[in-house]
């Protein structure tokens, strides 16, 4: 596509550069190996950098990170939060962590000298502690752990409570026989109900707006997404099979559709010798429906009746014959030539990229909840799927055009045997529609 040699980007010194290639690609200036080849100009890693990425090591935490950690702390704290513990060395931070305030909280200036430590309150079953010293080159430490020391820990469940009782004949070895499910139940009891709120219910609530379905507790083998037996696993799998819609095809935008060349059939047109592949009818001048005189030819040169192709494009922005991508699709199909004038912001309204409205349901809600807090820039994480495949895009650019579907089918290939995971697929044809 481009005659220019692609540039590389170093994620460690945040600069465009040409790497040394031996033994492995690495940055010529910082010797870092976290380098990326910028093959697709629309997929520039710099677009994804946080605004103050350069200050990450030495500067204050990015605001979004603060918000995220504050949210996590509020979740783990439970319904009756004790006040946050001021850091021993200053920087008291009594922040509101209510959801209303998360968005408003910005990146506050803070003392540049004192080491920063903030933790969740005492008497909690969980602690998040973040320490960083301001010395140059020092590292930030995030500690997720059990209750802070010194608190009254009487209500912490003990593992021995979950171990089977020892036989009284004294033949038992010293170590209790701890099984995996037992340990899991112990951990859940450690975090779970009876000890305040379920710490994960708020996070998981983003996935299931009506609360955790089949929730309850460990006794039914199911705790949110955690399961302890086959039946609960089946429930989860069924749920995923029924609910997952995060890889539906990306429809062509109105803008893309509007720009497609249209031609009105008239006598002598070479199109009259061709068929529309959707309705399988030959193009003809005499027709009852004037709309059928309008032919849209896709950039891959495949012509269709306008009323035939438009419903498809509004479902999936691909050519039905060769799967040419008018708009980037989920990574199952290698991206074709970058479509001219495609609009990222429009495609961000598609189901797979609902951005920051984390409570919208769908299986990816939890990740959107968590990372939505991070990004603060919904347009950047919208078309995530495409970026995963960018490294292979250059090799495959022309492939999709060489794969007419009808031929592939008739030749008796291996219809159900693509190597790609199903989760990478787009789902054309109104997959969620009711048929029966």
């Amino acid at each position, binding site marked *: 596509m481009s005659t220019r040699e692609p540039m590389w980007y170093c994620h460690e010194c945040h600069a465009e550069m040409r790497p040394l290639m031996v033994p492995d690609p690495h940055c010529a200036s910082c010797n870092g190996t976290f380098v990326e080849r910028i093959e697709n100009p629309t997929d520039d890693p710099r677009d994804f950098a946080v605004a103050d990425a350069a200050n990450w090591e030495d500067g204050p935490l990015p605001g979004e990170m603060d918000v995220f950690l504050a949210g996590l702390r509020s979740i783990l704290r439970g319904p009756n939060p004790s006040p946050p513990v001021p850091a021993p060395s200053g920087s008291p931070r009594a922040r509101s962590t209510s959801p209303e305030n998360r968005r408003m909280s910005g990146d506050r200036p803070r003392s540049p000298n004192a080491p920063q430590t903030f933790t969740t309150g005492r008497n909690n079953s969980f602690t998040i502690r973040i320490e960083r010293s301001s010395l140059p080159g020092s590292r930030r430490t995030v500690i997720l752990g059990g209750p802070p020391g010194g608190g009254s820990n009487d209500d912490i469940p003990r593992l021995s409570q979950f171990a089977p009782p020892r036989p009284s004949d004294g033949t038992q070895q010293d170590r209790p026989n701890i099984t995996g499910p037992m340990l899991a139940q112990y951990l859940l009891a450690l975090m779970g109900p009876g000890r305040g709120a379920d710490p994960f219910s708020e996070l998981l609530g983003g996935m299931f707006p009506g609360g955790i379905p089949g929730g309850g507790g460990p006794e039914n083998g199911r705790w949110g997404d955690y399961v302890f037996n086959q039946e609960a696993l*089946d429930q989860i*799998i*069924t749920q*995923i*099979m*029924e609910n*997952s819609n995060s*890889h539906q095809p990306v429809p062509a935008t109105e803008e893309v559709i509007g720009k497609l060349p249209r031609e009105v059939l008239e006598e002598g047109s070479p199109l009259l010798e061709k068929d529309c*592949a*959707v*309705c*399988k*009818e030959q193009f003809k001048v005499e027709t009852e429906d004037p709309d059928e005189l309008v032919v849209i030819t896709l950039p891959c040169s495949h012509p269709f009746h306008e009323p*035939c192709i438009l*419903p*498809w494009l509004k*479902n999936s922005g691909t050519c*039905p*014959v060769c*799967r040419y991508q008018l708009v980037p699709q989920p990574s*199952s199909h290698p991206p074709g030539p970058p479509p001219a004038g495609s609009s990222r912001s429009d495609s961000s309204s598609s189901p797979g990229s609902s951005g920051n409205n984390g409570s919208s349901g769908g299986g990816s809600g939890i990740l959107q909840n968590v990372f939505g807090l991070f990004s603060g820039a919904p347009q950047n994480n919208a078309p995530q799927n495409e970026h995963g495949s960018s490294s292979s895009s250059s090799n495959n650019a022309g492939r999709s055009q060489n794969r*007419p*579907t*009808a031929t592939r*089918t*008739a030749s*008796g*290939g*291996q*219809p*159900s*045997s*693509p*190597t*790609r*995971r*199903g*989760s990478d*697929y*787009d*789902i*054309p*044809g*109104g*997959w*969620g*529609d*009711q*048929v*029966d």
Partner: protein
Amino acid sequence: MAVSTRRLQKELTDIKRDGTPVGIELLSADDFATWYLSVEVLGNTVYEGEKFALKFRFDSQYPISAPAVQFVVDGQYQAPIHPHVYSNGHICASILSTEWSPVLSVVSVCVTIQSMLASCKKKERPPDNDRYVSRAPENPKKTQWDFHDDDV
């Protein structure tokens, strides 16, 4: 006239005029909602001598939306024993779900499934057959299939 009706009428006309490929027969097409076709695998295969029936269900959006296709399982027909065919007749084939295209047709789907059976070397059910069948929706289109097998 619904788009699906017109397209199916065209396919039916073509079938009646040109016939169907070898091993595939139209069993019934009484309306434009449900069709039945039979599929036999020709030649020396593990399904030699067996005959299967495919049930096609169309909605009004066909061919924009894929037909719901499954093997008939009743007193007369059984689902073939195949790693991509569940015992309730549901078929794990990408062209029936994510790789559907309006270019495909009833006959081309039959040919694809016929060749899928023809290339099978060993008769066995999908490894998750029991789990899937016990919870499968009635309509296979409601299943989110996961394609991960490159061997059959």
